[in-house]
């Protein structure tokens, strides 16, 4: 493959990254993960295994949590990609989900954390009242080596509760 790679030209792609359309020249073999990190300086997505098991590279691809290490950047042509930088409301400002992770200490080293937060966003967007089992299932494709998951599950349950409360009419809030 390498003998060919020397002669393959970069390809131009257009991506909707966190709501902003970006044009990029990338080598065809560049993964979406490397493209995000190296071409776009979006370093919240992390390389863990680069073979699609650990989930540390998770991003939202047209709203669905996917592994950015398992696809090429050129395959994302024309799609909307949302990263942890895109779900963070503003500099120094946290989303309800991010704040819930802080409240329960749903992390330790922080390496798998952006992916966990994105998975939680994807889950809660479709299921505002997940059971413990549904939360466990949702994060089961993301390996955390630090926490044993308990405080992550609690973070997502807490975020769901708070988001439901925030959307409820004032008289129904606790």
């Amino acid at each position, binding site marked *: 493959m390498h003998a060919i790679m020397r002669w393959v030209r970069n390809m131009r792609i257009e991506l909707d990254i966190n709501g902003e359309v970006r044009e990029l020249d990338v080598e065809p073999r560049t993964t979406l993960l490397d493209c995000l*990190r190296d071409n776009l300086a979006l370093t919240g997505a*992390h390389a863990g295994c680069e*073979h699609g*098991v650990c989930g540390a590279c998770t991003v939202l691809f047209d709203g669905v949590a996917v592994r950015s290490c398992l696809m090429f950047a050129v395959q994302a042509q024309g799609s909307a990609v949302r990263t942890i930088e895109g779900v963070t409301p503003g500099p120094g400002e946290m989303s309800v989900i991010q704040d819930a992770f*802080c409240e329960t200490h749903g992390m*330790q080293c922080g390496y798998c954390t952006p992916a966990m937060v994105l998975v939680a966003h994807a889950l809660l967007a479709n299921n505002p009242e997940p059971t413990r089992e549904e939360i466990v299932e949702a994060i089961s494709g993301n390996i*955390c080596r*630090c926490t044993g998951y308990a405080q992550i599950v609690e973070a997502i349950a807490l975020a769901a509760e708070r988001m439901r409360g925030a959307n409820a009419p004032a008289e129904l809030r606790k």
Partner: protein
Amino acid sequence: MSAEHHFRYVATDRRVREDRRFVAGKGKFIADIALPSTKHVALVTCPHANARIVSVDKSRALKMPGVHYVLDGHELAAATLPLMTGLDTPNVPRRPLAVDVARYSGEWVVAVVADTRAQAEDAAEEVDIEYEALPFVLDAEEALEPGSPLVHQAHGSNVLLDKTFVWGEVDKDFAASPRKLSLRVKWGRSSTVPIETFGVVASWDPWRDMLDVYASIQMPRYADQIGIALQIPVTSVRVHYDVDVGGSYGVKRGIKHTVLAGYLARRLGFPVRLIEDRLENMRGGDAHGPERLFDVDVAYDDAGIVRSMKMRALENVGAYAGRSPFQLGKPVGAIVGPYKINSVQYRAIAVVTNKTTQEAVRGFGQAPTNLAIERIMDEVANVLGLDTIEIRRRNMIKHDEFPYLIPSGTTYDSGNYEAVFAKVLAGGAYEDLKAERDALRANGILAGIGVSACLEPSGGNATFEALLNPAITTSTFMDSCRISVDGMGFITATMHTTSSGQGHETLVGTVIGEQLQVDPEAIRVTRPDSLNSLPSGTPVGSRMAIMLGGAAFHAANKLKAKLLAIGAHDLGIPLARAVYEQGNVHDRDTPSHKRTWADLVQIAFRNYHRMPPDMEPGLSVSHVYQVPNGSTLPTAGGRVQMYPCFSFEFHLMLLSIDPMLGRPEILRYRLGHDCGTQINPKIVRGMTMGGIAHGIGAALYEEFAYNDEGQLIAQTFMDYLLPSSHEVPAVDIFDHETPSPYTVLGQKGSGESGYLGAPAAIANAINDALRPLGISTNRLPIKVSRLGDMIAAAQAKKGN
């Protein structure tokens, strides 16, 4: 919690300050360090279990696009010294790149430097290396046999260490005991396998003679080891400690990566980055954990009182010494677990084989040792028909017997094991579990109850070094903290190492806030680089709550003493009458007569004429803290105070096994945990749950398995199985708090909690479940496939 607290911030439910940056993806991990003009390294590895390197042809690789350099082991060895090891084994040198002989499959042979990692990997495929395969040995017992292939010819044998200790009258106790039992227990080769691999960026500035090093490191004396190997003054090595480490749990000790990258950076004149991919991490990254075979004999009486123990531990350390032989030494400090065993014989043997080199793993050898002790306790109970909890109650040290001196010379600081037992078993929990187990069994499901009662030695000193290598005389193991109040009255504190998720910035802020009675959130905590740092033993040995917490505590008290002296002097009252309260100093007899924090800062920074005579201006203090209760060398008889503090954990679980598939499932899990004062309960709980998850992996799923050709066959996360959220059950944790008398706030360590007892409890539960079939297993991991085969064979034999 059992203790009444008078704390403001310590032991309260507070957030962890590090978390904010992590939830936003703004941690600064090694892969986020982007120095201009950085080049990338890929490695060429040996495909054989043992091979002579006949020739290396770099010519095709050097012609590949983007390639700058191809480095072999001879050039590197000529310019650097071998890596530091703990044992005196000069004929077992360890180097980043193999020289003449590569001793395990995956060992690094050549490094390629290119503009991008992809180009470096392309070129690595073009390096032509001719090998001559050599005989190899994989098994530790075979490595001991006369005639075994020698991993290091010049060393003359495969034995790195073989030491026997006898503490007490072992022969006499065995002769006097009516009953004896022997058990062979095997701890399989696994590791902590963080989700972030190890990485390092090195950059050399020839005009300042400075090697800047950024790394995802967790290792004592890192800068020293770099300087020694590269033969440059340590003042020319600047390690940046403000790099977030994406998990470590002991293993992030990439000294060989760093020496390689550091050499290349100096040789080539641009920054060099080496970040392992997952295969490099699992194979040539030298980060495997213990692989240990135990032969345990106990002498006991009809009541189940264990009088004496003989333990032989044979460790397969892999191809090079690394630091792993010392992992046989640390468990000496808790060699009898929580039990009153009167005498112990311990033989520790470390052999080299043609497998990946080991590094330190969570617990530093304690989890395997705990497994061996807890398995044999269960077997003694089984022989006598005693309840598994009852035998532990009969043997364990009682609350009123602390501090308790064990035969190997270590004094346990404190404990209340019976109280922890009582909390876990309260409300008929044990009887309920037994009823549930029996109901499952009645429905044809294999089910078992597992318990383990284990200690977590914490506060890490390094006396295992002197114990196993008398040439080492290290009795000092420090941590430090500096506090500076600035001219505006703001507080900045420092710590002097990297962290990998333990929340050390929160620890420092909380302890100083507690002592100064100021909001911890208002205290800035920074990490100066290694040239601006005070000594740190780094986060090993479950020590930072004790050691960094201790340093911060004493530094804060020094600052408080200075503020009191300034205040008393300016108030014109005797020091004894001055009272410090929330940053202000007042007269005990007239509380309204006071100096505020702002007044005291004004005096210290701008009014020297109001300072006590001969006092330094400003408000800067520091404290270097030595490990409490553990500063002596081992005696000639091998008795030693190993670590100062001993946390306790008691695991109780119900586990079922699908009789068709052999799939184990933990149905109920109760844990009693006592680590003294919990400085931050959220952190302690996370550590404990993470330790349990890691222990479940080591017991059931994770193994660096090799095939008969010496190839590592668990090379990806599809073969090396890390527990997911489905494999980690909910755990009911029952905290108890027995303060340590030796630490500043009564705290003990919790960095290894959960991991030290979960594998033993799981092994005991599985054996309880298998007992009706008349089979047992004492080899971890107990994988589904093996368990299923064992059960099928037993059922076939029974004619089911």
